[in-house]
């Protein structure tokens, strides 16, 4: 994917870095963030499926 194909909001977010940080570096970070987000959602969903909400009396954190 080329930088110009990145979502506009991403391009805009880093606009002030133009000429300072190469687009490839930013795209690599964004790709990493994409992958981590996917992994994060998967792991948390799996963990929460094994951790259903308390039924009945719920302890109160003090």
């Amino acid at each position, binding site marked *: 994917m080329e930088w110009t194909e990145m979502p506009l909001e991403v391009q805009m977010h880093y606009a002030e870095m133009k000429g300072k940080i190469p687009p*490839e570096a930013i795209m690599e970070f964004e790709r990493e963030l994409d992958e981590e987000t996917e992994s*994060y*959602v998967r792991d948390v969903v799996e963990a929460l499926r094994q951790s259903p909400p308390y039924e009945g009396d719920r302890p109160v*954190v*003090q």
Partner: protein
Amino acid sequence: MVTVQLLSTRPDGGQDVLLTLDNGGVDGSIRTHGNPTLAADVLTDRPLVKGKRVTTDTPEAWLRALPYQYFGSYLRAVVVLPKPVRAVLVESEWDEEKHPRADDGKFSSGGGGGGGASDSGASAGAKDRGGGTSTATLTKIDRSGLRPAEFDALLARVAEPDSGFTYNPFSHHAVNIGDEGYAVAMYPGREQVIPVSKLKAEDLLDYALRNGDLLREDQRAYLGVWHDPVTNNAFLDISGVMKDRNEAFGMGREHHQLAVFNFKTGQSENVPAQKAWFKNVPKDKGANDAKREAVHDDAQPARLDPRRDRARLQARNGGPGTDPGRSRIDTSQTGTGQARRTPLVRAELVPLREEWSEDLHPRDDIGRFTSGGGGDGGGEGYVSDRNGSGPARSIRPRVSRASTPALPKDATFTDEQVRVELEKKFSARSVRIATTKKNFTGEPKRHGVTLTKNETQAVSERLAIEYLRSQGFKDARPIKPSGRNNYPVDIVYDSRVVEVKGGDIAASKKAQQWRLTQGEPNRREKEAFKHVAAEDRRRYGGLKQDRIFARKQLAQQQIERVLGRKVTFETITMVVDAKSLSSGVADIYKFEGLHKRIGWNSPEAQTGYKKSLVYKGF
């Protein structure tokens, strides 16, 4: 010198300069531009003018005292500031309800007044011809949230014919072709047309500022710009973007639009004629005419794009100013086609550059960013571990004790690997805890044992679990680490997800904060950092941090969608005072939601404090 101009609007929509006030309003002169009668009408009985001289203290006071001309045209005032500073106008809507009139159309007591200001502001107290009080309000422009650098990039987006964008420069959210959503021209009175050859980034910025009221407050509002390949004009407008098709078409009907733009398909879709409209038409020839007209509309072959076919749409709607539901659009004054509806005024100039706050970026005595400092972006533009400063490094435990976790001395690990190892080690031991009084007093404590950040984090996570279990949540447990760089998720319990952030009580005053975790920079970033100024590295780190935070919030929504139930996210933080590697005291804080930064001494932390534990056994 500041010049103020009062413009009168002609019945045909054009505008004339009626008065010019020079010299900043203090004993300035007035030029009536060949219309002394109207000028005299405007200024009669006003305490701000003596002869042809102005006697106010400020141009603002003079502007506040201006009347609202209700006989056929309105008055509009602008402040013209010397170059290179650009005057920016903030237009305020005229609200008839706030300006009552008598039966003859004149303003009654309390009505009328200076130009349709709607929010709070000083009243000049001068009477206008209708007997009302002038109450024009000067609105201060709020530039927060705008990033000036973006506008150069936005300008580049419309350089090519038939190019454009849909973007909210305040929320920094864009809608692209292929996204779910529909665009409707909801604010036709706000359109502006500028030849592309004359379009500057400043024009886009000014337009965003002038329409900041909508772009900030209406989540559906976006700045839409399109380069018309036929006329080479740039069309600027405020588009409403909504995901719900019915809402979009309902809005299209409400605003008399013929088409709605579908981002998913990249095509415009005709808005069907409104059925209710037929009910109001008498069942005679008119009804047939109406029906024919509706059929004619539906049969239009053009799939009109409200962004791209604005002129045609306006023409088919009767043109600007002919719809009683719309305000008159005047394009004569600036030559830029700027759409204007209502009077008034305001110029307030504030430097655009965002301020760097040293308070948020603590440094040590020689100016280096301290642990937890470097602010949004870490001391070197990134944050490598929980408190964040510096990249992955060769692990050299700073604790000179035999009980230091046995890690290979010469190996280089990622922070996540270190965390996993430490967690395994700590989890293998039982921990004894007891409640004690709050340990952290606001001052750093220098003690004999200094934990690394990873060690502090591992201790904090384990203590958080023990704390939750002590509260009755026996299911509190760590989530299996998965090597993610930017997404620490530490604990789940009771359908809740917890991020734990630990801090060492030895941290300097400026470093007393818990911050969002940011991962190690990638190879290309590291290479780029060699040639980039430290300030730019920090700024870049801040931008990355914003992205991580935004993505986390989206991820939360995804998780809830997948599970089909509400999931609560929490943050538990610690100030750890380690007496040894295996014992110490920790103050525990708990907060709802995820956070970018919380200062240890902030009011938020005072509220979030839960209890303190003495621990032993790690």
